[in-house]
């Protein structure tokens, strides 16, 4: 068994395994809608999965435009839906 830990996404606790990206942990928890778009308010999720498309961007500990597919989850991270 891999070690599990938690971060929060829009205030909700999310469990993850060590080494998992934020996006992977969220998808695993069936949280597919990672953000809504700036103009149309449309839901977006992971798309390219390798840091090219920037569709999965979230706000991490107050810093915006972070690609959740690339950044590994850390204990206690505060993740919020970006725009």
């Amino acid at each position: 068994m891999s070690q599990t830990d938690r971060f929060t996404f829009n205030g909700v606790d999310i469990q993850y395994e060590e080494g998992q990206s934020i996006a992977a942990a969220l998808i695993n928890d069936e949280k597919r809608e990672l953000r809504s778009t700036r103009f149309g308010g449309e839901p977006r999720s992971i798309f390219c999965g390798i840091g090219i498309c920037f569709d999965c961007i979230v706000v991490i500990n107050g810093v915006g435009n972070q690609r959740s597919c690339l950044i590994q989850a850390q204990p206690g991270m505060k993740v919020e839906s970006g725009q």
Partner: protein
Amino acid sequence: MIIVIGAGPAGLAAAEAASRNGTEVALIDSAPRMGGQYWRHRKSVTGYKSPRADLLFSKIAAVESITHISEATVWSAEREGDIFKINYLQGGVENSLVGEKVIVATGAYDRALPFPGWDTPGSMTPGAAQSLLKGHGVLPGQKIIVAGTGPFLLPVATGLAEAGADIVGLFDANSPLRWALSPRALISNLSKFFELIYYARLLNKYRIKPQFGRAVTALKDGVATVSKVDSHFSITGQQATLPTDVVAVGWGFLPDLTLGGLLVFKQKVDSDGTAIFSVDNFQLSSQRDIWIAGEATGIGGADLSLIEGEIAGLAASGQKISPTLLRKRFRKQLFADALKRSYPVQDGWRGWLSVGTTICRCEEVKLQEISDSVSELGAEDSRTAKLFTRAGMGLCQGRMCSRNVSDIVSGITGCAVTDTDRIAGSNRPIAEPISLGQLSDGNIRL
């Protein structure tokens, strides 16, 4: 010192080959572990089953003259006389590497085509599904449709099935009969038949029946529309609707040419319309002391990337390159050309779109706005359409949509996309978004 950018098959082979005569190598990559997209793996899982990868990983870890810099993203590069300065971000901190020679092995990413619903959650590239599974041990959903074109769909569909997903369908828009166009490539690469048999067995085991001449042309509220398409990818009428959690749709790959705009080396347009880097027989770019290997010189798969990487590594470190190695590359190139002939992306996809379909995901530009920029505002190429609509001006810098925008504009004007237009779409002065704070902290000069 040789700086190798990218630790996928090409970069690993280049670093290993260059280190054979003791040359100092810095291998820089954005991922936590080496292997690139192709040999993506988790620390705790050795599920990628590749003796070639294991051998390269252990060699590189054992050689003292190779320094592996992981989780570092190159955001710019510059040249001053005989010295290169490669600027990268690592854990939010800006840093630089200095070397006399550079090997670029930046790989490729999935090519995506728009369709109604491709921007909604549940739609992703096969590469995304693959990376979630292999890199993070997560299934993107339970019911999955794998579609698009190309041999990459096979490992994705069988890998997901192996991990417990229900593969609702595996659809390739092209016909396997197209392989008949490339008899020479098949005869000179017989090992590929064993790979085919391997996947045929897996497909059989998981009861996946690949269907050809079909494409996912819409996704709405968890239901995918799968249409029969002809050899031009035009919908011929017959459609089926399939409930699914995920559609993983990909149309081959696009090389990452970002560094070309920074270090100014020559690009050209490949036989399939893809902009690639131009290299000589020894993988040397148009600039002295910069070699390029792997997908960035034309999509060809891991076998070709390994050989190109080895040649680049040997050339950059001043070692002899055997004619056998060059012949091996020629054989793999034949196969790469056959792949392009067998899995073309035809223009008919433009007919799948509706006026409200998102074309540029970042800036939320719809087809209607691009059409209007051509018919009402007079845009004649993708560059002008981009200036009018902002398509391609978002965070991804047009990596996802610029080629599609060119094709859409060309479909309206009736003028073929020029090579200049194809190449212009890949030139970017900054490789990665960087904050002004990071810029000012790092004392960077642009």
